[in-house]
């Protein structure tokens, strides 16, 4: 890391206190190790736990920069909700097995991806370190620390005055996301005969041409649809649970 910093920055860095430097070093190490762990771990569960590590490191860096409220939200929302959702889906689908990372269908993909990203990273680092970011007048949002209450008061005032309309829009966004997730994850019931028919016929036809597992699956699905149409809810549930069990 020290090689990345031009000599003109070293006095600025030396002005930082020892505690700040140690905190930044530990936080940055946690973040980088966790991120590398997400990418190279073969088990999705381990990747999710490494993601938690990165998120905690980012929260530490938020605190270090005076964004206390965002650090709390980061831990609660990311580590407490999003990663738990990831783990829930991994366990629910039963995909928590090792995968073979050496197997690579497209031989050119990894070198090409790494080359492109390294080029992008070089550009970003030149911009981040070499440029002067003092732009013109500050925006209308206000200073980062309020007179009383620190960053929490400043952020609250900003969100509920300047950014009130975007804040209201996020409510609509969350409702849309919840409804969309329910619609996507829902299983067709006997009440929706039309959906059961398209389920068996529409996507089943191309996958039946594939042969093997998909065709039997679509047949089972069509059977489930027919049975549910003929015999009602109890039979359909029995067929569906029998089909879903791997």
């Amino acid at each position, binding site marked *: 890391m020290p090689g990345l910093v031009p000599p003109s920055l070293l006095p600025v860095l030396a002005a930082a206190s020892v505690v700040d430097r140690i905190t930044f070093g530990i936080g940055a190490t946690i973040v980088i190790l966790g991120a590398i762990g997400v990418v190279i771990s073969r088990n999705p569960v381990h990747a999710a736990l490494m993601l938690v590590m990165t998120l905690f490191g980012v929260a530490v860096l938020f605190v270090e920069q005076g964004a206390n409220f965002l650090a709390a939200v980061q831990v609660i929302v990311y580590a407490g909700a999003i990663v738990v959702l990831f783990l829930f889906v991994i366990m629910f689908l039963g995909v928590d097995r090792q995968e073979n990372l050496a197997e690579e269908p497209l031989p050119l993909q990894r070198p090409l991806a790494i080359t492109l990203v390294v080029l992008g990273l070089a550009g970003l680092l030149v911009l981040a370190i070499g440029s002067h970011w003092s732009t013109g007048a500050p925006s209308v*949002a206000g200073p980062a620390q309020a007179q009383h209450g620190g960053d929490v008061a400043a952020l609250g005032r900003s969100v509920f005055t300047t950014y009130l309309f975007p804040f209201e829009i996020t409510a609509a966004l969350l409702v849309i996301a919840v409804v969309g997730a329910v619609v996507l994850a829902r299983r067709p019931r006997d009440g929706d005969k039309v959906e059961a028919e398209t389920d068996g016929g529409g996507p089943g036809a191309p996958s039946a041409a594939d042969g093997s597992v998909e065709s039997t699956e679509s047949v089972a699905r069509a059977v489930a649809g027919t049975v549910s149409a003929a015999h009602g809810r109890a039979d359909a549930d029995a067929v569906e649970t029998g089909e879903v069990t791997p």
Partner: protein
Amino acid sequence: MSIAGHWYLALGAVLFSIGAVGLLVRRNVLVMFMCIELMLNAANLTFVTFARMLDDIGGQALVFFVLVVAAAEVVVGLGLVVAIFRRRRGTTADDLHMLKG
């Protein structure tokens, strides 16, 4: 006096690049989602850094909205993964060639 913002910007760039490599290289859709989270976190770190460097609460407010959008994105994305898994029995990107001509 805390650390100069350039260090945070460089760290954000490195974190974003690691996430981008993971997104391009991995084939498990769940891990690809986690890499997207890494990239979003790198952007958040950059926003907070600029909020401190320019003494402007707008950066922190934007992080707040990014968090909301990330939560919505994960919910819908994982719903899609569950729906696809129910039909195709796999969560790798190679299983999702239904739209291929």
